[in-house]
């Protein structure tokens, strides 16, 4: 980001902590701040009142602010910045902080705090937010001296955005914001106790290349680290050079275009049949910025049991945490791959790819076509109409998995969802954040009826800012993902998973957002086209879908590929996805 003028001539001036705070953000090139005011941060808000080059977005709940910052960060690659007040403002932000921690998203969250001499006194709106967030931040600070403020903010941005990214919280007592100091923003910072390794060990990289060059059935297993490292081009170069098939995690979607024949889509619990079988059959597994999450591995002892494993990750503690790596490489994916790509040779994978194509033809992603409306159809159409040129933000549950499976992922930073924490209510605020950060692609929010009601208040933020967001609610009348587990594993006892909803169309209209309801597959395409054509404001579409549909394939938690449940739909009566059809033809 190029810092705008207006920021000059402030270095060396005496100013209040509140002014210093705002000047630091300007120096960092922050253009968007998601927040909510309150007593102890009122001084900062007073400074923001006159400032034009930082856009403050008033969300309707602090959870919304943190998720919006996550969405902004995921879509733009820049850190998301949040400002909230002490006490309830800070605790409301906690879920979003935990979410960002689990998904390694760089956030800098500023919380107000009571005056330093009252800390520990059960003062009005006091909570120990540094204590509360210690296990869910990469690092956090309580600033006790205004002279430490600028340096601490510099450190916070540095820590959040380097190494394995993550949220950093800075707690700002009211008196520190009121006290005065000379403003000096350090240009650079170095911390003796924090020096992330970015360059891979060349001996390890050579070992990896030797292993790869001998592979008969290589497989790339690509995760969110590739997106955060902006290394899609390098991954693509590796896969294409090796002619190696590639599967991605939920967070890796978009790292490699799924239209390519080498793509196997997502692996894991709800991954494609063929990606999971390929993991089981491969002889060299190249894990790139992926953390062997249990939703991916199932039973860890059996995961890729026939393969030697190469694991590239910037976080040493992610390596061999769940599955032992034969060749660990600690470093930034982009840098490591640049070196690795030079050392590997094209492989003859014809047989391997032919086998995989057979699996693709026999076990495509598919769903029933019987005239009733299904979420898969909605997402399939969205992928077809946009041709993958959209940022799609999903909530948590069945609708999330169908989005992952059926959308045609094409570009990095277009797939945004809550994976590690699985936070229902994530999608609407995160989509807002993405829309504030990016205007080059349409932003579509896809949510279940349950999740949508968890942060429905953010419709006001969408309306107030007239964000061109397309909001698709998949209404099945159930907390569908839990209902699916009850159906499969709890004798269909649907305990408290039926959920009622307001009339979403009327709700949207009450906020001044145009809305429409669709209940027939015949109306899906026209409605999506209409929503996407409505470029200068938001639109909400409620899709009323069949109530008891299930997500397939499914590997039950902790089990292996041998227990995979594929869709019961016979190939003929069902619709296999467009992207899979291309695969099947080879």
């Amino acid at each position, binding site marked *: 980001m190029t810092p705008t003028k207006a920021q000059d001539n402030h270095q060396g001036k005496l100013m209040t902590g509140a002014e210093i705070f705002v000047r630091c953000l300007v120096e960092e090139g922050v253009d968007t701040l998601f927040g909510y005011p309150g007593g102890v941060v009122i001084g900062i808000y007073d400074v923001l009142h006159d400032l034009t080059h930082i856009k403050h977005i008033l969300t309707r709940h602090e959870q919304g602010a943190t998720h919006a910052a996550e969405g902004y960060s995921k879509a733009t690659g820049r850190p998301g910045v949040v400002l909230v007040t002490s006490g309830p403002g800070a605790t409301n932000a906690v879920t979003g902080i935990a979410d960002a921690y689990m998904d390694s998203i760089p956030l800098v969250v500023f919380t107000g705090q009571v005056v330093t001499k009252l800390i520990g006194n059960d003062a009005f709106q006091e909570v120990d937010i*540094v*204590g509360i967030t*210690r*296990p869910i931040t*990469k*690092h956090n600070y*309580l600033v006790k001296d205004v002279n430490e403020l600028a340096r601490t903010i510099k450190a916070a941005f540095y*820590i959040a955005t380097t190494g394995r990214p993550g949220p950093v919280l800075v707690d700002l007592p009211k008196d520190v914001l009121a006290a005065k100091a000379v403003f000096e923003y350090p240009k650079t910072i170095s*911390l*003796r*106790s*924090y020096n992330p390794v970015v360059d891979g060990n060349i001996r390890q990289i050579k070992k990896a290349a030797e292993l790869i060059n001998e592979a008969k059935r290589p497989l790339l297993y690509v995760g969110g680290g590739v997106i955060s490292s902006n290394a899609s081009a390098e991954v693509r170069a590796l896969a294409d050079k090796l002619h190696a098939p590639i599967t991605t995690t939920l967070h890796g979607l978009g790292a490699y275009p799924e239209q390519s024949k080498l793509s196997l889509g997502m692996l894991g619990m709800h991954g494609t049949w063929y990606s999971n079988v390929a993991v089981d059959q491969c002889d060299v597994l190249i894990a790139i910025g992926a953390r062997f999450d249990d939703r991916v591995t199932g039973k*860890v002892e059996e995961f890729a049991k026939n393969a030697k494993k190469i694991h590239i990750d910037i*976080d*040493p*503690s992610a390596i*061999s*945490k*769940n599955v*032992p790596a034969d060749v660990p490489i600690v470093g930034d994916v982009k840098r490591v791959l640049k070196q690795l790509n030079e050392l590997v040779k094209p492989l003859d994978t014809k047989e391997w790819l032919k086998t995989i194509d057979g699996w693709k033809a026999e076990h495509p992603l598919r769903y029933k076509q019987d005239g009733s409306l299904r979420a898969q159809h909605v997402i399939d159409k969205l992928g077809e109409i946009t041709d993958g040129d959209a940022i799609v933000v999903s909530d948590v549950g069945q609708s999330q998995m169908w989005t992952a499976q059926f959308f045609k992922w094409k570009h990095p930073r277009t797939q945004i969802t809550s994976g590690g924490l699985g936070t229902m209510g994530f999608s609407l605020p995160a989509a807002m954040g993405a829309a504030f950060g990016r205007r080059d692609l349409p932003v579509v929010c896809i949510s279940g009826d349950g999740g949508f009601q968890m942060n429905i208040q953010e419709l006001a933020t969408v309306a107030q800012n007239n964000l061109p967001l397309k909001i698709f609610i998949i209404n099945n009348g159930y907390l569908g993902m839990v209902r699916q587990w009850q159906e499969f594993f709890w004798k269909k006892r649907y305990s408290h998973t039926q959920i009622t909803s307001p009339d979403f169309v009327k709700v949207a209209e009450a906020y001044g957002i145009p809305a429409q309801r669709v209940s027939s597959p015949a109306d899906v395409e026209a409605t999506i086209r209409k929503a996407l054509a409505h470029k200068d404001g938001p639109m909400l579409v409620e899709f009323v879908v069949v109530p008891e549909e299930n997500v397939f394939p499914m590997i039950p938690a902790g089990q292996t590929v041998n227990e995979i449940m594929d869709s019961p739909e016979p190939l003929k009566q069902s619709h296999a996805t467009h992207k899979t059809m291309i695969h099947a033809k080879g």
Partner: protein
Amino acid sequence: MASSTTNEHVKQHTISMTVENHFGTLNRIAGLFAAKGYNIDSLTVGPTEDDAVSRMTIVTRGDDQIIEQIMKQLHKLIDTIKVVDLTDDTFVDRELALVKVQCTPTSRMEIMQISEIFRTKVVDVSPKTLTIEATGSQLKVDAVINMLKPFGIKELARTGRVAIKREFQGEA
């Protein structure tokens, strides 16, 4: 963690680390052990030759995989400057115990003899008690305490372990 902590590969490790002497650092480290379910046999913190740096000595146990994770997780904390597992190195370690033992005029001499054999110090005397300061390896401190038990231990205060790596004794 995938592996259990009760198998035969579990071993005691002495980890020595230097950390930034910031407020909350101890909390972060204790919190890490609690959150991940790692054992702490003992943990000591104290100043070093540099005011801004504290040294912590952590005695923990686990199999190789767990110890590897503990080391990585400790290293990952932003305030950690250096972590070393001293277990496979030669290192000097000490614990200290203050043991208040009951005594009668007849047992007093016997207790003092034990103290002498172990080269511990008597640091307080009253008509009915003796307080002994024992310093040494965990084994030695255990042995002293065991020998004193039959007399009746009234109170016991014991530190955790502190440790430091031995320097290489090269040719002069």
